[in-house]
């Protein structure tokens, strides 16, 4: 089964490390994929809140393009960014459930010579790795088990809500199971789907910083060495504002924030460059990760 890959704009800007690590991991696991041709912006949360129908049309263009690129059967379209994932999924579900919306959107698409027939399944890469490829298979490919590394998985809100796809809406566990399969130790914490502030860090910064501080503090308190995310905006918020949070609230937070694909890559034996590690502001401390034979792995 070949996957189609929809990068979205974040993975080409602030989230480049996510794309680099995702593609490297897909390749090393021999998961076949190709990029969606001529994809466009998903519209993110902003467009949907201004004009839902226009936003659906914009997102649906990508779904129609996917059908054009894969003429037969069901198409699994990987959308790694949580906002893209949600918007595309929402579009897919709405077009499926509401014939009047489908008709309207298709009449718009028709003008661009496109049509959406309902063959696309929007998938999050976490779902693909854990439920399609399988944890047992991942464990088999692990070269450097991340023994002793305590990982707080942070899911954010958009991947699990409002649509319940592959995990629980309030207490997801897929990433924790993946962490376990990589040999690391998942940290159980109640804030795994609590809001990171989204775009508030850029608008009402006071509120944004407060929300991020709660997450960082609690992960730290539970002994996490690193926090994992599956969303470029969450990663950006949690990583880039730590200095400001420390100044404002008189804290000493120093928490590495990585994409889950980066941690997978480390365990699978990929190089720093392949995983976009140099793009992180905070490097996890090296002595946490040990080679099975006892030598340090210089991944980071």
């Amino acid at each position, binding site marked *: 089964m070949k996957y189609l890959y929809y990068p979205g704009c974040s993975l080409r800007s602030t989230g480049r490390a996510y794309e680099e690590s995702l593609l490297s991991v897909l390749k090393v696991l021999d998961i076949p994929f190709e990029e969606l041709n001529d994809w466009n912006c998903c519209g993110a949360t902003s467009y949907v809140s201004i004009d839902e129908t226009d936003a659906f049309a914009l997102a649906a263009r990508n779904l129609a393009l996917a059908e054009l690129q894969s003429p037969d059967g069901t198409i699994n379209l990987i959308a790694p960014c949580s906002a893209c994932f949600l918007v595309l999924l929402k579009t897919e579900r709405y077009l499926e459930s509401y014939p009047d919306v489908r008709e309207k959107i298709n009449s718009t698409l028709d003008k661009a010579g496109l049509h959406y027939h309902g063959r696309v399944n929007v998938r999050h890469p976490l779902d693909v790795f854990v439920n399609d490829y399988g944890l047992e298979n991942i464990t088999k490919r692990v070269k450097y088990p991340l023994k002793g590394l305590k990982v707080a998985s942070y899911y954010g809100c958009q991947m699990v809500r409002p649509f319940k796809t592959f995990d*629980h*809406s*309030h*207490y997801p566990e897929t990433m924790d199971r993946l962490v376990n399969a990589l040999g690391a130790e998942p940290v159980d*914490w*109640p*804030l795994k789907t609590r809001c990171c502030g989204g775009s508030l860090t850029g608008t009402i910064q006071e509120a944004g910083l407060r929300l991020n501080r*709660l997450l960082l503090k*609690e992960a730290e308190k539970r002994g996490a060495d690193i926090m994992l995310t599956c969303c470029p905006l969450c990663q950006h918020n949690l990583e880039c504002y730590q200095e400001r949070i420390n100044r404002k609230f008189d804290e000493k937070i120093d928490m590495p924030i990585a994409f889950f694909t980066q941690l997978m890559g480390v365990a699978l034996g990929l190089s720093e460059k392949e995983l976009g590690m140099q793009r992180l502001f905070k490097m996890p401390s090296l002595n946490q990760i040990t080679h099975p034979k006892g030598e340090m792995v210089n991944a980071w």
Partner: protein
Amino acid sequence: MHGNGYNGTVRIGFYICHCGHNIASIVDVKAVAEYIKSLSGVVVSSEYKYMCSDPGQELIQKDIKEHSLNRIIVASCSPLLHEHTFRTAVEKGGLNPYYFQMVNIRENVSWVHTDMKAATEKAKDLARAAVQRVFHHKSLETKHVKIHPDVLIVGGGIAGIHAALTLANAGKKVYLVERDPTIGGHMAMFDKTFPTLDCAACILTPKMSQVKNHPNITLWTYSEVAKVDGYVGNYKISVRRKPRYIIEGLCVGCMDCIEKCVYKEGKTPDEFNLGLSKRKPIYIPFPQATPQIVVIDPETCIEFKSGRCKKTCVEACDRKAIDFQQKEEIKEIEVGTIILTTGYQPFDASRVPFYGYGKYPNVYTSLEVERLVNASGPTGGELILRDGRHPKTVGIIHCVGSRDKNTNRWCSRTCCMYSLKLAHLLKEHTDAEVYNFYIDIRAAGKSYEEFYDKLLDENVHFIRGRVAEVSDWAVRPSEEGKLIIRAEDTLIGIVRRVPVDMVVLAVGMEPQADSQDVRRMFNISCSTEGFFLERHPKLAPVDTFTDGIFIAGCCQGPKDIPDSVAQAGAAAAQALILIDSGEIELEPNTAYVVQEECSGCRTCLTICPFTAISRDEAKQKAFINEALCKGCGTCVAACPSGAIKQNLFEDEMIFSEIDGLLKMESPACC
């Protein structure tokens, strides 16, 4: 011609009912009556506001005499509601009631359509189908069957117990079948009952012992219904009696065997105390268990697992009541009526992971707290938490698995009141601060609101808002080591964080896990949420759509003890009506064999679910016993020669009806 039992010309009277606005606001009843008048065979066609009223019925009777009508059709509501009414009216008019046909244009037309034009056309089609059908109607005799006076009651909770005692006291013989080793159900697990605060055991156990000792009640615990055959008045039931490895007639419940078991301490989670204590492989569920007979659990007993136990229990029993060889036993009984009181299961709180049940030890379900505060419970009534502490603050979360579209949409009706009761008991036992988190307090019942007032006076806190989560996420020093309940207080519009030592989840009621299997076995229906469906939500609340089978208690829907008992009494009364009338009228919808067309192939013999068909070996033909035939139609469809016909559903009737629907002139009616 066969099938048309009436000699002479067919003269049809057609009546369409307005049903107030129910039908007439969507269906143009005048247009339908006008149209039907034009059809061949129709002598009278009229509309009337309420056909089921006395004047409506008299209209039919008058027309039968004045116009010599010999077929009557009423287009109105569902036959379930008024077929009997109109058949009786037709009979009073001097016509055999089976010359009547009903067309449902309310449930099938006006209530489900909004377009008047299309609805009127559909009503016309359905009415025309009936007009073509009645040409083939014939005069039939009503069947009567005798009602066996014995009653089967399934489920020995408070509803089953009450129904059994009511019937037994009325002199009827009752079989009470219970799946667990003891009767008592959930009520036996409760500590006190709202709003009077009398102790559940004190009011229940006398009734349990009456059941055990009543000469008219046969009590089979640790047993399940395995098979149900027959029909109203004549049910044949197989009951599977699971082996308890104890000879019931010999055991006196002295419990010496339990004491002498090779296990010095219990190792298995105790079902009755919901795993809050441990039991041995040989045990009695609770001190007042009825019958007071020991049971051995083969899953945990060493003798069953290895065959190498010292069997100290056998040595200890003076009466030689222990029998490791005991086998499952099947009992066959005949009863006339059945009452299902199979109860409910509490909602599984771990399905709402953000409330932390199963994750944080001090999060309890309400039923667990009933056991915790009970004097015969795992802690002797002392409120000790799983981590050994005594709680100083307790949060009770209402509507867990109720009023929630992610789990169960319905209100479980009892949780508000039992939460108030538990708040009172927790305060009484611990003097803790108690916080209730509620959506609405539903205290609709006699003296219930007063009980709520009393709790307010006892300084129990009430916070209106559905709880978002329970966690150990402390953000202040005062929250360290506590469970933090986060909820919006919707009355003042703030988000609260309430640190507590203990959380009680007021879990709702769900249908039993096997309610669908039980439904199929007894051939009754379930409503969408899975509770057993009553025949009518207002006017037949304990009847089902299967004659002779009644439901009571929480298997029909969530309810408290007074309502369960009231329903149980009602179900017993319904059974008594059938028993004391001695017989029941049945539809004459039996099948019959057209002898000259039967090839004697025996196909029908094997498939009849009621063993109503035998073979006349001399004539080599099948023969249907009308008294046993239930009119299911299986043999009619299966007969390879088409030799079996069924009254009320003759081929000519069905095909004419289809022709009528498709606007084809049926050759038979011309």
